[in-house]
């Protein structure tokens, strides 16, 4: 099966987005200045490119344009919902971190349980997305 170029682009760019997310958290964790530009670029890119791509693929699958087995559709749905949660958490927590840092506090550092939970959810979301890509096109 030929792999659509945009699917490859999305699968690869997700890794760069993940690097950006971890960079934002790490900077705050190590008490360095908040990289607002990186946060904004990552948040907008993820929404306008990767989430749009995922929503489009899901809509095509739901409309029956792409023949996909039911178990993979269930994986799409689970991955889509988890990605939504992870993205939502990233933007909200980063906004809190940005505001706190202006008051001399470091949100991620001061909320380790929340931070690690978020990173775990983000990682599962990304790994499940890459797994779907591999199962759909490489296996």
């Amino acid at each position: 099966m030929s792999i659509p170029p945009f699917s490859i682009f999305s699968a690869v760019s997700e890794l760069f987005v993940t690097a950006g997310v971890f960079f934002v958290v790490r900077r705050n964790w190590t008490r360095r200045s908040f990289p607002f530009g990186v946060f904004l670029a990552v948040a907008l890119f993820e929404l306008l490119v990767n989430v749009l791509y995922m929503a489009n693929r899901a809509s095509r699958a739901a409309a029956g344009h792409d023949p996909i087995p039911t178990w993979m559709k269930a994986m799409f749905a689970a991955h889509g919902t988890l990605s939504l949660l992870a993205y939502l958490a990233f933007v909200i927590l980063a906004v809190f971190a940005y505001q706190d840092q202006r008051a001399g506090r470091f949100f991620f550092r001061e909320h380790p349980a929340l931070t690690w939970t978020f990173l775990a959810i983000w990682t599962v979301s990304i790994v499940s997305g890459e797994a779907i890509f591999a199962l759909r096109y490489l296996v």
Partner: protein
Amino acid sequence: MSQPAARDLAEARGLRLRAPLLLALGALLAFEAAGGIVIFCARLVTGTTPGESLHVIAGVALTGIYAAYQVRHWNRVAPFRPRLDYLLGVIASLSLAATQATGLWLALSWWRDRVAQPVPGEVSYPAALTALHNIGSVAVWTFVSAHFGAVLMRDRRRES
């Protein structure tokens, strides 16, 4: 900030958070979000759309409630200030407007296939428009929550 001024600020915020229009908007947004997730998953996995008509009707009501809320809200907070809470608010309002517009557009397909000229089976929603509506919904959830959180955090800092 002095103690009485901080108390006044907290009271004013409490009144705003309990305003019927905001409560109605919050309830409808939550209902539409939950319904949207259910429809997204069920349509993708089983090809069904549970609660589809309710989602459309509540969406139309949400459009009216949101328009009324946004006009009052803007009259209170205008003009735009170069701050994070304002930026998030603008993104949230644009996302909500776009989501409502695509939702109403999708509702035309629902009206055609369910009411005007009923057809058996699923309503034929345009895939690209559905995708835009879904991504808009993600943006609404994200930026409305972030805006709300940023404003509450800003107020908490002012009060302390």
